[in-house]
């Protein structure tokens, strides 16, 4: 029983960063923007979160640092893709490459420093209930509020939204920033809770997995939650199996999350009925108001 509880705690810890980042990206993509830079925003959040906690000595202070770092990166992305109308795919890749490089340079002196773990609150780490709350809030926002309706409208058909007088660019800026804040927080979670230290490239592809999760969840927040826990379980499973020493090469087990991601994409993307209604129709397209 105790083992099971421990296992559950570990799974939650593995799932939470994926959930946070994927929720943010869900909002971004619902508005019709494909930000492939989640990995870059996340790793910047990780280094900033750790750095903030290290500088102030207070792990809580790391959280706003992480969020702001993610938002700063997101702002860069938004400026390029929304204001300068740069290609979203290329800019997202650039954001990831820059984030990985910049975090390594900034975090150079933080490598090997002892980490400070975020204290528990009533026995659990407070960001876990927060991530559940956020899932509910995002779902409520998207499907029960006028603002959420506007976000979905902008993502479905930006020309129509513009014709009705909504500012497509402003809506998208805000959604991109929200996505950045969530990715930054997810990164902060990694360096403040998951493994409380700073290691270069410590996101290890989690940003990309979060992106795949959004597709897997067909842009529905509750399915994002389910997907994040599924992936959390898979990644913990590989640890557990390694510990059991079954003679399976550890490399094969480590590749499970990545293979699982591919499998999930294949299963979901091939199913047109599942993706039909929710796929934001103008995803990834630049918006240029016509005359």
């Amino acid at each position, binding site marked *: 029983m105790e083992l099971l509880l421990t296992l559950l705690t570990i799974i939650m810890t593995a799932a939470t960063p994926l959930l946070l980042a994927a929720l943010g990206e869900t909002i971004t993509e619902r508005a019709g923007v494909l930000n492939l830079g989640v990995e870059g925003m996340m790793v910047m959040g990780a280094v900033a979160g750790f750095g903030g906690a290290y500088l102030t000595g207070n792990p809580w202070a790391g959280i706003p640092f992480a969020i702001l770092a993610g938002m700063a990166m997101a702002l860069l992305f938004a400026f390029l893709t929304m204001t300068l109308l740069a290609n979203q795919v290329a800019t997202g890749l650039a954001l990831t490459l820059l984030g990985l490089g910049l975090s390594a340079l900034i975090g150079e002196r933080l490598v090997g420093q002892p980490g400070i773990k975020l204290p528990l609150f009533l026995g659990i780490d407070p960001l876990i209930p927060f991530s559940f709350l956020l899932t509910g809030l995002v779902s409520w926002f998207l499907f*029960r*509020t*006028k603002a959420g*309706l*506007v976000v*979905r*409208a902008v993502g*479905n*058909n930006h*020309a*129509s*939204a*513009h*014709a*009705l*007088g*909504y500012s497509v660019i402003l809506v998208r800026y805000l959604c991109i920033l929200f996505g950045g804040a969530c990715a930054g927080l997810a990164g902060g979670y990694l360096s403040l809770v998951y493994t409380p230290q700073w290691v270069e490239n410590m996101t290890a592809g989690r940003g990309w997995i979060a992106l795949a999760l959004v597709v897997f969840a067909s842009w529905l927040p509750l399915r994002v939650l389910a997907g994040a826990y599924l992936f959390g379980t898979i990644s913990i499973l590989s640890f557990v199996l390694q510990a059991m020493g079954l003679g399976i090469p550890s490399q094969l087990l480590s590749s499970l999350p990545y293979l699982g991601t591919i499998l999930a994409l294949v299963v979901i993307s091939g199913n*047109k009925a599942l993706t*039909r*209604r*929710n796929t934001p*129709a103008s995803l990834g397209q630049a918006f240029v108001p016509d*005359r």
Partner: protein
Amino acid sequence: MTAPLLEVQDIVKIFGTLKANDNVSLDIMPGEIHAFLGENGAGKSTLVKMIYGALQPTSGNMRWHGKPIKIQNPAEARALGIGMVFQHFSLFDALTAAENIALALPDAYDISGLSKRIKSVSKDYGLPVDPHAAVGDLSVGERQRIEILRCLLQNPKLLIMDEPTSVLTPQEADQLFVVLRRLAAEGCAVLYISHRLEEVMTLCSAATILRHGKVVARLDPRKETATSLARLMVGAEVVQVKSTALAARGAERLVLKNLSLAADGAFATALKNISLSVAGGEIVAIAGVAGNGQGELFDALSGERRLTRDHMLQVDGRAIGKIGINGRRKLGMAFVAEERLGHGAVPELNLSSNMVLTRHASDAAIARGMLVHMDQAEIAKERIVKNHDVRKGKIDPEARSLSGGNLQKFVMGRELDRNPGILIINQPTWGVDAGAAAAIRQAIVDLSRLGSAVIVISQDLDEIFEITDRIAVISRGQLSEALPASELTREAIGLLMAGAHEAKSRESSHAA
């Protein structure tokens, strides 16, 4: 005399170097249906977008009930009581009708309350709409009703309608006129944009005519003829297509036999049991309301989507249903797509490269083996530009920089240049100015009279009656029997557009 509801005074709008509106003035009285006429590109849309707050004028004023106003955005326009029904609807496929309507209302979010209001207003005006239906699943007529309801729910004082009947059957259009007349009787003004002069003459009590961004006439359309209105719009006599009567029917060149094709994608139409034969020397029209399978039929005929059985499509006696588009081109077929930019031509490529697009398989001079000969493509391009009077600023400009009419002349000319035995055209003069439209129609007639079989898919009944010999109607993926144009009336076609032949063909397919 009552005071005007809206006064538009000396509006100028400049885009870059183009003066889209040049000192346009316009008065609209309460309760009047005011026609706003002009050719494609005359500047009508620009002006109504400024009235709706979607664009800001470069200079000039507007007055509403005599008071000067500046409409900063569509929400302000709607708050004043200005509603607009767009030609290309401003709807969201993935959202429900109620959600679509909520997006245009200032009210707080309350879908269930709104659904009730929608039901009562839609019943009152005879505009049936299911608030919970996803818009992507609805027909064009139903979508327009949502657009209209969206305006009606705000108790409009001025309703702007941009080409509302171009997507409707004649009967649906008549129903729309009933609604518009009732609104006018209730005191709501309507600014009515159309190029269908007959309906303007019966519906509207005032008209403003725009040409090249300038107002050229203000008049009472009830006292005019279609010809006199057309002359004012175009600024010259409208050229009539010269057509000789169809001689004895030639041999069957193109035969469709029970052509069926499954729907491709979420909101597409399936083609069901389509049969048709076209002889050399004749032009057959495929009429119908947008979204009834015209695009799918074009793809099936062109081979962009291959058919499942060879015999479904026969050309000069050969069964070729499974052959792809280039194989069909090599058999003398040619295709002109509806969408010029992004289907018939690549916007970002120059005209020479766009020659290669449809000619690389059928024209050995342009592409042989693995190599492309751009010098030959350029020669062919020059020939087409000369023969079809394509006007352009540079020697070899990008396709996107040409006007609609000139680009259409180019993509038509690219195919006519090959003297195709069979020509399939989707919407030959959509969004094209009158001069270019006349030239294109003449070219189609000339080609057919030399012995080619031509299919014209069109939603424009005037065009269909002007140039085609027989007419078939497509509705929900089914095609009616093609009958001689001389034996058909608009009303008869309207019934077919609404699907009158579908039941019949179901019965016959059961019998078979």
